[in-house]
């Protein structure tokens, strides 16, 4: 398959949340969330209850995919940073480690310069964690370790979902 299955474990999830919570404080932002390129929300911190993060995640991924398509048409690999400026709130969207999308929502209590600076630092930390996550998933697959919850599901389990 074109890209391997995305798996998230407790340990890395905590580390990732620690990094984006720190970024939330240091960049003076309102909400931060991480999305995989397929549009699945990985995690979010800050004022997330105020927003429909599932829809935001899907649209962010669509946005990145569309601008990525534009980049290829003009001979660029990708546009790694997108910035959307609103009247009150702004979105800073960047690609982390080539596969995850980091979205920072901020208002006039912060600034684009500050957000860019802090995102850069956090991105490096996140890249390290995601690389480790990928290695871990590969190792587990190689060793044939199956803590996979779906290995033992029955047809009844599946049917029950639709009852």
């Amino acid at each position, binding site marked *: *398959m*074109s890209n391997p299955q995305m798996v998230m*474990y407790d340990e890395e999830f905590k580390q990732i949340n620690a990094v984006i919570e720190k970024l939330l404080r240091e960049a003076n932002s309102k909400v931060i969330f991480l999305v995989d*390129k*397929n549009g699945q929300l990985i995690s979010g911190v800050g004022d997330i209850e105020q927003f429909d993060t599932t829809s935001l995640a899907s649209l962010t991924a669509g946005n990145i995919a569309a601008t990525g398509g534009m980049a290829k048409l003009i001979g660029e690999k990708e546009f790694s940073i997108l910035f959307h400026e609103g009247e009150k709130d702004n979105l800073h969207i960047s690609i982390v480690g080539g596969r995850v999308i980091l979205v920072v929502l901020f208002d006039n209590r912060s600034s684009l310069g500050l957000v860019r600076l802090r995102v850069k630092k956090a991105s490096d930390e996140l890249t390290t964690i995601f690389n480790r996550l990928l290695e871990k998933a590969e190792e587990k697959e190689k060793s044939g370790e199956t803590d996979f*919850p779906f290995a033992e599901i029955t047809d009844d389990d599946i049917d029950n979902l639709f009852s």
Partner: protein
Amino acid sequence: MSFINYASREINCKIVYYGPGLCGKTTNLQFVYQKTAPDAKGKMISLATETERTLFFDFLPLALGEIRGFKTRFHLYTVPGQVFYDASRKLILKGVDGVVFVADSQEERMDANIESLENLRINLEEQGYDLDKIPYVVQYNKRDLPNVVSVEELRRELNPTDVPEFEACASTGEGVFETLKAVAKLILVDLKKGK
């Protein structure tokens, strides 16, 4: 690919509705949206033109319930069916777990069906997927209209590999959930195999 989150005990899968322009992909999603309990669905997003033709995609998140303590979520997407939106269609297929091909049963749309199915196969291959190997079902839509082609002929042209197929009338909802259930089931069975 599906996203398994052990930390929040969630599993997310992506289903894409594909098919020629005006075959009823968006109508399928709209019906699912209308008939799903509010706590099991998110907002339906439609990126459409002023004349309600899909411009980029429709998106509907569904939470089906739990399997072995894992929340099972499906993200339903449609592609823009019109031929010239091919670049957008390719993007939406990224990371797909299962595909529904919605065919327009009307006689005059037969060529459009065949062209769209061919386009699906090619676009999937570009993303590294093989239509014959991924969870995939076919829906023959608009069965209520007078000028429809017989199911036998549709099958011959559009379903030579004999994947699960459903007759439907998406505007009244007939066959809509049967189609969705079938593809969701194929995806879960695939996950079970640990693919």
